[in-house]
């Protein structure tokens, strides 16, 4: 598992299809707490990867490390996105390389209206979906466009967070528990959206407690436990493997 993937531009030596997003031996710390303890995985272009694990397993920390938020601090390891070394970048540089993170606590910006929250995503290039297209996808947001973002209901905030990511032209979408707090119908909606954008070539990493749903959607799955990878394989394998499911996912 811990084989350094090939990032070179002429991927002749590659055994499998070249990785689009590649994480290699990543170690991250919150201050002195050692959280992400050397994990490596690949995501291929156009693929949906489910990142699963218990509470506190380090899923959020992994996504935040990839997005270069600086907290946790990545002290060792490499991250490559489409031949670009993310590990040498700061968060805004990573974002302009095409990385989009939908954070778990949504992070709607206080003091800004719904529309301003979306506009904010379109200040720095590359720019993705137009506001109109986003409002088509989430009509509720359209209705609420002048309302301050943080006064939205929990679910509406989640929609806004996803819309905000799509408002940028991203190559990889990192979703941290996108279904949380959403009504089942909306979850269906979003799932459809994810399939839709996957069809258009988007690469996605999804972290979700609703493991079954995530696995049904995903092509592949990685399971984390206490900061390390305990499984890396296809989604179908997980669904079939009773033991694995019971031990790490309690399903």
């Amino acid at each position, binding site marked *: 598992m811990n084989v350094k993937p090939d990032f070179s531009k002429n991927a002749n030596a590659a055994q499998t299809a070249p990785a689009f997003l590649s994480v290699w031996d990543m170690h991250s710390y919150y201050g002195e707490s050692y959280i992400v303890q050397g994990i490596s995985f690949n995501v291929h272009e156009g693929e949906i990867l489910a990142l699963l694990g218990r509470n506190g397993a380090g899923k959020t920390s992994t996504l935040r490390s990839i997005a270069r938020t600086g907290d946790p601090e990545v002290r060792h390891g490499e991250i490559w996105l489409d031949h670009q070394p993310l590990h040498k970048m700061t968060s805004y540089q990573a974002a302009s390389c095409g990385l989009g993170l939908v954070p778990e606590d949504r992070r709607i910006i206080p003091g800004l209206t719904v529309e301003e929250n979306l506009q904010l995503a379109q200040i720095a290039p590359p720019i993705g979906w137009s506001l109109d297209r986003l409002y088509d996808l989430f009509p509720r947001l359209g209705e609420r466009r002048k309302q301050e973002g943080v006064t939205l209901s929990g679910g509406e905030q989640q929609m806004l967070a996803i819309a905000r990511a799509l408002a940028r032209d991203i190559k990889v979408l990192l979703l941290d528990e996108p279904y949380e707090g959403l009504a089942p119908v909306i979850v*269906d909606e979003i799932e459809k959206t994810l399939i839709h954008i996957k069809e258009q070539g988007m690469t996605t990493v999804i972290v979700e407690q609703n493991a079954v749903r995530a696995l049904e959607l995903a092509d592949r799955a990685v399971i984390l436990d206490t900061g390390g990878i305990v499984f890396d394989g296809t989604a179908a394998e997980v669904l079939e493997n009773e033991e694995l499911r019971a031990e790490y996912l309690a399903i």
Partner: protein
Amino acid sequence: MGILEVKDVNKRFGGLQALGDVNLSIRENACHAIIGPNGAGKSTLLNCLVGKLIPDTGSVMFDGQSVLGRKPFEINQMGISRVFQTPEIFGDLTVMENMMIPIFAQRDGAFEMNAITSVLSQKDVIERAEQVLEDMNMSDKRHMHSAALSRGDKRRLEIGMCLSQNPRLLLLDEPTAGMARADTNNTIDLLKQIKEERDITIAIIEHDMHVVFSLADRITVLAQGTPLVEDDPQNIRGNPKVREAYLGESA
């Protein structure tokens, strides 16, 4: 006559009718679930119950007394505890301290000099706090700064904090959102157990139907600020209107 009686409550935000003529009665010792699409006004309703918002019209009676016009802390002292949709805990304090605060608060709610003069090492308080931590399965994290908890853990901590107060009415706003399946199941068991052992009434908002159907005795479906139906769980599951507006195909 229920322990909580909500009558004709209306709440507007600017042009938006967030709650329209809400009538709700919760029976003592029941577990009453409130479900409904995102933005239906569920959290707003809870906010009106705990004094965070004041309804424009209508009345809210708890155990025969009106809660309107009282400050949040007074309402809490009447026996209503609330868990928020996004965890509200004392981030600067350790888990153990977080647990002790509500216990002290209950005792010293009205300011007494005793709080200044006594020492922290009060056996009963500590024992009680540890007991609750045990219940919440969090004893091993007792010395952690609560800000450093993963989100699922924060949520469990908050539930524990509310339970430690032995409230008569426990309001839960999506308590298991973002919780791992295993912990969700634990929480369900815990709530069931508490309900059996204690004289407690629970009102719960949830989008996770597994949780709702395992716990609820009674369900109210809220849509666009007004109760759509109120019924027993089985009937709700079968109700086509609810299926369409809320549950979607996956129920």
